[in-house]
């Protein structure tokens, strides 16, 4: 009784706060209209703006030396690995051979082997190999070294094969794997890049192992397409970075995740940091990478690694927390030590989440590697950027297809790995049957390697040999765009959107006084999410105002809001009508699933094709990017409404429309809100990428910082974007939680 009374008071209280804030906000607007608003409430006065950027820069400059000396060390190690991979994949030159580099290569490999296999023999063997490698590099000159290495490798390979056949243990297989990787690397020193046919064949075997014919086709097909279309080198430039960045990200994320799970304090400290990191625009990752890690692949790899870590941390903690208590107790009763608990019970039992994390790491890495084109990293992204710059739509289109194929392939393969569970073999199955796929992969790999020594076409596809139809497609697309009807439609849309909708809306937002803008956002958060998000909203937007980048922030916000609003106008009806039928829901979900794996950069392509380089293209690219989560979660939400509910509505004689409005939508709304939230987050990400097209918002300013060393400014701008995004995130997610609780959905 008492409780409910105080609750009532609280509600009245909340409501009155809400109304008075709203009134205040409107008051400021009216004041501005009649011209009595003091200037400091309209815009933050120049002289009052704190010099965040300068302070940061000063702090940074004072500490620059020792910081760079540390990062230099890491970047050199990373560089070696990148170069080895680059050499393997597309034949770049590697000329140095440093013992520490060997350790940096073998240590993670050793740790990884031990992590998977868990047996000491794996650890011992891998360490012996790496130690020997190091010793060799110390005591033997470069030339002889190779010969010795070959002898050594041959011996280990023979030993490993003997062990498999004799004892049928797994760890020598892994060791053999390492040995062959080394062999291939060393081979690379002499032979140059791997033949494309080898890689394609191995990918096909891997695909078959993970998911049958379809994935075999996808795996092999992607590489075949890439080779035949003449983009092999570009794709390999991109993949060689991915191959280094994704494992490093995975391991770091895993370790931090374990730490966060073990130590609650660390977790508490990490969480807000991770939210910020996840919403920070990618430019803010790029500039520090450039400053600390040189230009080119190393910086790109570094930015990529850091960018992909946060979700891995989250998935690791989630997975470890979810391990069922009885399994943990079984481990304890067996007398596991702490380390054994972790390595033999927790981590294997959390396999699914960890692999989901790996999938996310791979996809984020790919997205970021493509984006590192902005700091001059060669590869698919850079080529796409260049082609779009010179408006070569045909070639852009082909590169786009390659990127999409690579993304879908990586996604599907890693997801197939998530669901692949170990299956037993019948007793007495011979060793080659047990390790059939491994052998098949080895045979395919080396078979095609030998084959391509004879047949040049299977090795490298030369300049004149590829099947690119760039020019023809270019002509086709341009021809299509030149059709009067198409011109008329896009032209009209452009005109209508720009002059009737976008510009007026933007001007309106820019006109609103800062103070009432902040108040209004706060009121919105209070109304939707409650007190806590409202406080955050107020603080975050006040910070944005205090940075002096208010107008640009507002333009960013305006772009996001208009794009998401348009996406809703288009997407919601589509999703609602698709959700009516089982078949269409499935199709559209599959489509969204696939589209969500595309690196964000790709979405610029259709926008530029249709609308050229202007505001509408920006909005359009964000729009299609955000449509994906909107549609997806709406369909999922509507399909997830329990059938009893809709049946009850049917029995009550509701019409289809009534049923939708009164039953389905309210129940689906929490799920839809998640999609809406994701759409906004995506939009904030995309709007920054769209700086490439030419915008006047924070993104543009951020892109400009890349040219110099304005680390402080870059960081402040990035924080503005992040805080605005977080405001929405907090508000919407808090509403969703409340709503779910109220509906008893949790």
């Amino acid at each position, binding site marked *: 009784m008492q409780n409910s009374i105080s609750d009532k008071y609280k509600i009245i209280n909340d409501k009155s706060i809400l109304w008075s804030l709203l009134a205040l906000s409107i008051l400021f607007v009216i004041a501005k209209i009649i011209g009595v608003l003091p200037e400091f409430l309209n815009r933050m006065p120049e002289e009052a703006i704190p010099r965040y950027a300068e302070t940061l820069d000063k702090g940074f400059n004072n500490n620059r030396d020792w910081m760079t000396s540390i990062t230099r060390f890491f970047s050199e190690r990373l560089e070696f690995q990148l170069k080895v991979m680059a050499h393997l994949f597309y034949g770049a030159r590697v000329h140095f051979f440093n013992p520490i580099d060997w350790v940096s290569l073998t240590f993670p490999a050793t740790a990884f082997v031990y992590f998977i296999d868990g047996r000491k023999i794996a650890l011992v063997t891998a360490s012996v190999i790496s130690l020997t490698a190091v010793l060799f590099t110390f005591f033997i000159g470069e030339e002889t070294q190779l010969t010795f290495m070959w002898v050594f490798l041959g011996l280990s390979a023979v030993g490993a094969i003997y062990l498999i056949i004799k004892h049928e243990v797994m760890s020598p297989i892994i060791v053999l794997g390492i040995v062959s990787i080394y062999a291939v690397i060393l081979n690379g020193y002499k032979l140059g890049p791997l033949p494309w046919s080898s890689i394609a064949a191995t990918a096909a075997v891997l695909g078959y192992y993970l998911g049958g014919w379809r994935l075999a086709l996808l795996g092999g097909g992607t590489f075949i397409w890439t080779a035949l279309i003449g983009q092999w080198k570009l794709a390999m430039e991109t993949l060689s970075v991915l191959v280094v960045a994704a494992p490093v990200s995975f391991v770091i994320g895993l370790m931090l995740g374990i730490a966060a799970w073990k130590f609650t304090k660390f977790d508490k400290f990490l969480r807000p940091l991770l939210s910020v990191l996840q919403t920070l625009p990618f430019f803010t990752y790029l500039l520090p990478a450039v400053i600390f890690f040189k230009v080119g692949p190393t910086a790109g790899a570094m930015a990529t690694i850091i960018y992909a870590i946060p979700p891995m941390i989250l998935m690791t903690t989630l997975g470890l927390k979810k391990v*069922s208590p*009885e*399994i943990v*107790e*079984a*481990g*304890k*009763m*067996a*007398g*596991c*030590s*702490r380390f*054994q608990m972790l390595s*033999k*019970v927790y981590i*294997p*039992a959390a*396999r699914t989440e960890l692999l989901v994390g790996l999938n996310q790491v791979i996809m984020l890495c790919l997205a970021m590697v493509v984006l590192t084109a902005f700091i001059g990293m060669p590869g698919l992204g850079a080529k796409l950027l260049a082609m779009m710059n010179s408006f070569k739509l045909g070639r852009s289109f082909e590169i786009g297809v390659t990127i999409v194929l690579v993304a879908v392939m990586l996604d599907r393969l890693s997801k197939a790995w998530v669901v692949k*569970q*170990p*299956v*037993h*073999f019948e*007793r007495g199955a011979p060793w080659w049957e047990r390790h059939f796929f491994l052998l098949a992969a080895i045979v395919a790999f080396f078979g095609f390697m030998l084959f391509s020594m004879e047949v040049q076409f299977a090795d490298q596809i030369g300049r004149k040999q590829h099947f690119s139809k760039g020019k023809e497609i270019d002509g086709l697309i341009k021809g299509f765009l030149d059709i009067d009807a198409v011109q008329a439609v896009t032209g009209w849309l452009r005109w209508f959107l720009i002059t009737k909708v976008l510009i007026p809306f933007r001007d309106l937002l820019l006109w609103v006084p800062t103070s009432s803008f902040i108040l209004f956002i706060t009121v919105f958060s209070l109304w939707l999410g409650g007190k806590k998000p409202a406080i955050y909203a107020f603080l975050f937007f006040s910070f944005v105002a205090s940075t002096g980048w208010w107008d640009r922030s507002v333009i960013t916000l305006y772009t996001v809001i208009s794009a998401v609003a348009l996406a809703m106008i288009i997407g919601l009806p589509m999703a609602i009508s698709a959700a009516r039928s089982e078949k269409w829901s499935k199709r559209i979900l599959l489509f969204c699933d696939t589209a969500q794996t595309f690196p964000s950069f790709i979405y610029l392509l259709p926008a530029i094709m249709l609308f050229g380089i202007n505001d509408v293209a920006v909005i359009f690219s964000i729009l299609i990017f955000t449509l994906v989560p909107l549609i997806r979660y709406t369909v999922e939400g509507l399909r997830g409404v329990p059938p009893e509910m809709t049946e009850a509505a049917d029995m009550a004689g509701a019409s289809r429309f009534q049923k939708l409005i009164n039953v389905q939508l309210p129940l689906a709304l929490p799920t839809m809100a998640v999609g809406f939230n994701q759409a906004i987050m995506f939009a904030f990400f995309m709007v920054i990428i769209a700086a490439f097209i030419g915008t006047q918002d924070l993104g543009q300013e951020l892109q400009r910082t890349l040219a110099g060393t304005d680390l402080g400014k870059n960081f402040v701008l990035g924080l503005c974007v992040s805080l605005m995004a977080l405001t929405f995130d907090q508000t919407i997610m808090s509403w969703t939680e409340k709503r779910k609780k109220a509906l008893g959905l949790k």
Partner: protein
Amino acid sequence: MTNSNPVISCKNVWKLFGFAPEKYLKNLPENKSYEEIQADGYIAGVKDVSVDVFKGEMLVIMGLSGSGKSTLLRCMSRLHDITGGTIAIDDQDIMSLEEKELIELRRNKMGMVFQSFGLLPHRSVLENVAFPLEMRGQNKHDRRDRALEVIKLVGLEGREDYFPRELSGGQQQRVGIARSLAIEPDIWFLDEPFSALDPLIRREMQDEFLRLQDMLGKTIIFVTHDFDEALRLADRIAIMKDGAIEQCDTPDKIVLNPATEYVAKFTQEIDTARVVRAKTLMKPGNKKSISGPALSENATIQELARTLINDTRKEFPIQNESGKITGTMNRQEALEVLLGDE
């Protein structure tokens, strides 16, 4: 039972679930009921339990769902840190053990079968069974041999390479049993170990455990919902309610002299004649006057039914295992137990 020191000795053990339970327990007035504690936001998983378990004894814990049986077991194995009281194993207070010592204790002395099996999903049957051996640092071949042996014992031969998710519930449970059998611990915690087994295998397993207990003198704490099983196995039965032990005694005493109404209700469905043994009804003293064949003191009244009805002697001589007459049993009393007192 032997009179030596108990293997496990619980004294006023409490396990409360909730926020800062130690502090709450300290200020807890005596005689606060389970419901009152619950109203304060705490759940008394184990409530002031004192019980001793002796070497070679099989103690069966019974009680309704949620009465705290599993929790008590977890306290004894220190999977839960208890909130109050002491638990000593071989006179060593387990709450004072260092992590290392605890690990040693578990590796060398304890085994547990879990109610929902607790199998490691990524390991095959063989690897699951060999897991505790692996932790003990046994070498690969020995562990494989031993694991295969117990897998055969529980009837899972031929499924060594299967993964838990490829097995039925009963098979999974047998893997759990095999895992604990593999190390032959001195102290065995069995949490409803046979609940998912079919009657045939269940009987075989019961026999196996009885055999081990008999031969090797293992101490077993056994949780079950099945009274038949309890009667077959138990040296003593403890009946739990709301975290507390209502009564802990031999089966026949529990049935004949229930300490509380709850225990009486709990046992009312049981056929008394199946529980009560001649020994219980026997009056000591060797009356030479009664002639005729003597009855074994360990026979249940039900087993003696035929004799009781056909043999019209007023009193029966009772003999112990070595054939010595130790007392007499009144026929009328025995018949009353057999037919039930109306």
